[in-house]
């Protein structure tokens, strides 16, 4: 029992050590002129990239586990899972056999993934319009300010207004460039501070949730 807790302790600290070295090396190589620090940072960066490449296989394994479990247990939607599994395997075989740049592969990718991507982007405005019906209602001062600014922008951009009132173009430009931009800037500024403090919490071992992933 004592032995195993010691091992756990060593493991956790080794992981924490890797985290801290990675974090500090990335920072130090940015601020200081030092070939040694650069070498450490570059090595860690390379490790990080390769790990990232491998997590793709983690994803593939979890998706295969999830689908095959689903099929075995006949969960809701299991026939689609079976279809998904066949598609993934078939597609990988096709890709390895024909090559990424073969005309067939390219057309197949265009008419599936890219098409679905374009189609889902095309639906966003539908969702936004139905949400506007629900959300842009003048209930309180808060919703009034939000709703009026939103509708002002929609109308100022509208071609039917630009036809009779060309200056609308300049007003919308002014609104976007000044109040809107400044709001975004304040978000980035304070968010940056919050992000750096989160980095410090990681160094101090305080960001408990995320650090759980590096503990046993």
């Amino acid at each position: 029992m004592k032995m195993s807790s010691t091992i756990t302790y060593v493991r956790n600290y080794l992981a924490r050590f890797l985290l801290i070295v990675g974090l500090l090396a990335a920072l130090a190589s940015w601020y200081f002129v030092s070939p040694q620090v650069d070498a450490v940072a570059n090595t860690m960066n390379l490790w990080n990239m390769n790990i990232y490449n491998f997590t793709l296989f983690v994803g593939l394994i979890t998706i295969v586990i999830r689908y095959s479990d689903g099929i075995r247990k006949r969960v809701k939607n299991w026939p689609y899972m079976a279809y998904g599994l066949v598609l993934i395997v078939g597609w990988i075989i096709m890709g390895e056999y024909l090559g990424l740049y073969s005309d067939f592969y390219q057309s197949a990718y265009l008419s599936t993934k890219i098409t679905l991507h374009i189609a889902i982007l095309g639906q966003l405005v539908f969702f936004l319009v139905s949400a506007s019906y629900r959300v842009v209602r003048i209930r309180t001062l808060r919703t009034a300010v939000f709703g009026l600014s939103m509708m002002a922008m929609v109308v100022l951009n509208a071609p039917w207004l630009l036809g009779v009132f060309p200056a609308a173009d300049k007003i919308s430009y002014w609104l976007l460039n000044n109040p809107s931009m400044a709001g975004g800037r304040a978000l980035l500024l304070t968010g940056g501070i919050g992000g750096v403090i989160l980095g410090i919490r990681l160094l101090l071992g305080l960001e408990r949730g995320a650090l759980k992933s590096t503990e046993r």
Partner: protein
Amino acid sequence: MRIPELKRQYIWGIVLIVYLTAVLVPIGAPFPMSDITVEIYNVIGSLKPGQIVVVGGAWDFAFDLESSAAMIPALRQLADRHARIVFAPFAVESVQYQKYVMQASGIAEEQGGTYKYGVDWVQFGYIPGLPAAMVGFLNDVHSAVPADVYGTPDDKIPLMNDFHSWKDIALWICPHWSFDVVVRYATAEHGIPAIYFAQAAAYSGYSPFMMAYPDKVWMTNGFLGGAQYEQLMNTTGLGHAAINAYYILSAVLVVIVILGNVDMISKREKKEEKK
């Protein structure tokens, strides 16, 4: 009078009708012309026959589709000027995107145009490893991309005999999201003029580049830019369709929001009556 609450599906039905109408019936909505778009038109218009123009960059097809509104008429203008076109994709999906705009422009021989593959235009395959790949491409095209997308070696392609490095590039056109890489390496390091048919969402982020390089970098803005370019080339296409759709949609949205508020007020009144 009581107005029934609109269900989501009804609203979506209305929106769908808006888009079908806008694509099928050109209503000719008005839009303003920007000076910068005219300037871009003049820059391409002043190209000399035989000069090499690179069309390249990286991103997802679905997002870059927005830029095709301006890219397609621009390709036709390039063909009018007899400029030679090299497509350089730095993302996997950019290959398909570039093939798509070329096909849609109809300037290639295969689509009944005059441009002959290998002589007037070349399509490369995916060049991995931005931004280092960009530096390599500009320094030595033949070693960065030894063959075109069909696997033909560069020395067997007539156009490639005149294209070796950045010195041979007259203009870079970027219809892809990754314009920052083009400016940083092609314009900043080698002074190559660059045109970006920007996606509306990318426009504000990249517009400082225009201020940094006033006579080297030009950008259009989203579908509006596309519509403006189509107008300059005397055609209509995706840009006009998008403006037309927004013409109707913006009005419909105002009505829907008003209905939403009416619904809220009518419910409130009903509650008060009950009290």
